[in-house]
């Protein structure tokens, strides 16, 4: 078996594993009541803002 073939098999195997994991955890077990939904929505907004700040800083630093 060539090295390229071995690497391709390794990646293919892991990609399939990742798909399995996504299928296994497709449906969240915890029921999404209103407080839970609000908490997760706030978290997504928070992360978007923080990542945006990080990207802004990165661009500013690069342009100097």
């Amino acid at each position, binding site marked *: 078996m060539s090295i390229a073939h071995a690497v391709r098999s390794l990646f293919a195997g892991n990609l399939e594993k990742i798909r399995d*994991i996504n299928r296994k955890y497709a449906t*969240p*077990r915890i029921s999404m009541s209103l407080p839970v939904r609000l*908490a997760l929505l706030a*978290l997504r907004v*928070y*992360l978007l803002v*923080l*990542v945006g*700040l990080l990207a802004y800083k990165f661009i500013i630093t690069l342009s100097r």
Partner: protein
Amino acid sequence: MNFITKCYYLFRRVWKSVSLYFMLAGPGLVVMIADNDAGGITTYAATGAKYGYHLIWFLLILIPVAYYVQEMTVRLGAVTKRGHAEAIFDGFGSFWGWFSLLDLMLVDWLTLVTEFIGMTAAMRIFGVPEWLTVLAVCLLMGFMVLNGRYWTWEKIALGFCLLNLIYIPAAFLVHPPIGQILADGVIPNFPGGFNGEMFFFLMANIGTTIAPWMLFFQQSSVVDKGMREKDIPWGRFDTWTGAIITVVVAVFIVVLTGTILHGVDIDDAAQASVLVMQTNKYAGAMMAIGLFDAGLLGAICISLASSWAFGEIFGWAHSLNTKIKEAPWFYVSYFFTLVSAGLVVLIPGAPLVLITLFVQVVAVTLLPAALVFLILLLNDRETMGEYCNTRTQNVIGGVIIGTIIVLSTCYGISALFPALFA
């Protein structure tokens, strides 16, 4: 005779309890004391140098803060028998699961680099070249995980935790004025007023007390140790003990630099050690040894946190109780993380300061997510049963976590834009 018999049986009961505690002690002690990692030592050293003894009261407040957050991971691990990463995947789906897992990997790897930075800087003081420090640490950590079971690893880690107490005798060597420490440090006060710099130091101390990897590590450690619901009280005691010891060590570091280096600007703990050596060579040497130990403890725990998390999700065997043949990917990911982080430090001109800065900010992205998920998981009555959070625990936990989220975020922003808080 009756009195002697009573004493004997009392002694046996106490000894049995102590023996049981030592069997169960570990996750809480190790995670809390490892929290005093290289970055933490630098923070405390800088705090003492900047403000003397005036912020000791703030460190003492962090004892219950650290306990309340970490205790929740003990309950979650003992009841669900799952690590934090798997709990997030299961509870909240694959999007949040992958986010948490990948962010944890990145934070852990970057933090591991900073631990190597601390260890190599400490050993450089004694004339040991960086490559030798990295090699010795990798070999030591390899020995720890390959040569035994979780029990063996834990007891060796506890030995290094004991070495972390070296700051206590070091502080006494510089003859700190006890009266002044009590006068300045016990009553809440803000020397110089509550300005941007003070805010930065408070946030840095909080940020170093609760780190994302600690949540993942302690929960996985509780699972790997095989703790059950009936062991939760001992897990709580273990966590309290760890929280107290870690803050006591932090206080003594502040006392050490507050006595010798008050008014001096400190960039890192290695620099502080060299400066302390000029006044008292033994205290300085102990500080350098403590810095190395802190970096090593941090590295020991952080590298495991990532491997455990990956193993949980990918379904690999992921226990220190398994041999390499039984859990190859677990050990491969462990050594890959460890060696790659160590090699970064050896790259000539590597942006180590930038990496240290980046760690702080990336950790902030994971900390709120991990804390929010922790509270939500602990409120899942279906899974947690009688060990679900009570209303009081939710209120206390919610206030602590909300405050940590706000202050950690401000810390992350201040790290990115220092002028904002100048």
